[in-house]
């Protein structure tokens, strides 16, 4: 399912995906600085599990492979270990570019289906924005039950001891199940988020207006 904004971006950049990434993806302007040495790909601890290592993603961006890049699972695999950033001879903030690409693919409605990192990210955001504080009990349970009820019960039973220990150590309260704690000025917090969303929509709108 692609979004309207995706159509607008395709219209606007007409086959210049590098420019699109430069303009719209967080830290995307660094992509053109990559000299294809490959030290990031070789240094990534999850490297063997990616479809495309960072260096290849950067080349695909330059080669206009918009569809393949934005629907790739690769950037969702980044665990933010920063090994690539530490070693990149040109100082590219590769970790941030990966997160930027992941976010952009989601916004364009091109994220891969059933990607656990993406699912958890959304879950975390929904949980956090409700009360302004993360409800760890609900978040944890939500994660356990994301693959269905039977699977959820199985995982929960497995984690029973951990949960009890956390309660004993007062790191988690069962009362969180009933509403849970939040920020003092909840309506103010929501107003802030709304404003941020408006600003972001305006920024994207500005970028997609044909000029």
């Amino acid at each position, binding site marked *: 399912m692609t979004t309207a904004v995706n159509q607008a971006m395709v219209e606007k950049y007409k086959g210049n995906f590098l420019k699109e990434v430069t303009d719209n993806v967080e830290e995307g302007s660094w992509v053109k600085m990559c*000299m*294809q040495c*490959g030290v990031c790909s070789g240094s990534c601890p999850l490297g063997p599990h990616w479809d495309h290592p960072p260096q290849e993603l950067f080349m695909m961006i330059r080669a206009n492979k918009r569809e393949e890049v934005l629907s790739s699972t690769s950037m969702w695999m980044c665990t933010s270990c920063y090994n690539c950033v530490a070693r990149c001879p040109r100082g590219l903030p590769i970790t941030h570019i990966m997160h930027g690409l992941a976010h952009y693919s989601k916004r364009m409605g091109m994220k891969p289906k059933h990607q656990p990192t993406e699912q958890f990210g959304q879950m975390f955001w929904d949980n956090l924005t409700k009360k302004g504080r993360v409800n760890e009990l609900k978040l944890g349970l939500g994660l356990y039950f994301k693959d269905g009820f039977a699977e959820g019960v199985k995982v929960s039973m497995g984690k029973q001891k951990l949960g009890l220990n956390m309660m004993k150590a007062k790191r988690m309260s069962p009362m969180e199940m009933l509403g849970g704690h939040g920020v003092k000025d909840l309506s103010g917090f929501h107003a802030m988020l709304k404003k941020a969303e408006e600003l972001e929509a305006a920024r994207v709108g500005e970028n997609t207006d044909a000029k």
Partner: protein
Amino acid sequence: MTDVVATNQTIIVVGGGISGMTAALEATETGKQVILLEKRPYLGGRVSQLYKYFPKMCHPTCGQEINQRRIKMNQNLTVLTQAEVANISGNTGDYTVSVTLTPRYVNNHCTACGECAKAATTEFDDEFNYNMGKRKGVYLPNAMAFPQHYVIDQRLIGTAEADAAKAACKYGAIDLDQQVETLDLKAGAVIFATGWKPYDANKIQPYGYDRFANVITNVEFERLMDPHGPTGGKLLRPSDGKEAKNVAFIQCAGSRDKNHLAHCSRICCMASLKQTNYVQEKFGDDGKSTIYYIDMRAIDRFDDFYQKVQDNPNVSFIKSKVAKVEEDKASGNPVLHGVDTEGYKRYANQHDLVVLATGMEPSVDFKGFPVKIMVNDEGFIEQDDSNGGIFAAGVASDALDVNRAVQHATAAALRAVQVVNQVAGA
């Protein structure tokens, strides 16, 4: 006391490597008074530690010999070895250079007969071989050393061994009472030909130079080929003395890297291409080389050399900056990990020996220089009018190969000659 005449029409050249020798000779052959200062006990610098030059694959000793002969023929050139600049003051046409001379404990009666060394026993790390071998405390630094005089290591002074060496000398050439001296020399122009040092490979943590015996640097590889070197000219790897028939070269080890040297060191591509020839020279078709590179920079006419190496079926090229080196415990073989840019394939390749193509950094930190000169971000001296009568020659100005360093040194000599000509009112 060392007696040196210097006026404000004198040109002082600091550094007696290939650039310094060239600058000094070019200047003195125009009739100028020149003093050449060298920190080591001999001239020739890092070039004298190379086995062969690219692209002609000839021995540097040849050019060294020519330069030594030129030096001997020029009465206007004074060479001071074991001499270091302590301070410099003044302006164009009127500099004073303070020089510290550390004693050699051997005077010029020395005939290099070697009897003194036979009387000595204690051994020290051999600097000429990048500490890969040992030398005695009484020693000739290398076979081609100029001046061809023995040296007594400072650390032997006051021992019975030094006295034994003195007693062994039939020519009265050993003087154990020599002291450190300081000279204040006048000069109209000063040329810095202070050269380079290999980038410290210990700083490139993922390549394990500090941890794995079979990871060495390109300058060390040169010493392995020298018949006078630590292995007697055999390509043997350090861990077990096995013949290194399968050699990996890692390019840009510390160069073109924001975490290390930001600049391209320019020589390392050609140096590694040259060194693949060494592997062939020793083992013929049994010798295999693999070059891991970002991109090969063989400029101008060097491209012919590059193409010749590319045509060699025993040399492979892998376009990839190696991510890390590990060691196979059983064999001691280094294992190279990375991703190939041509196809994005992950590899884990074993080799007998890894040679890091380490880059060049300036050997002197000019940032705290006593008189104002322009130094760029990489630490090299920039050519600038505000430098007055101070000039850089060779690698003090930028990462250069021998050919370009010599050209640059000739240019520096001409600039210095112009300054002293103005002083003389010519």
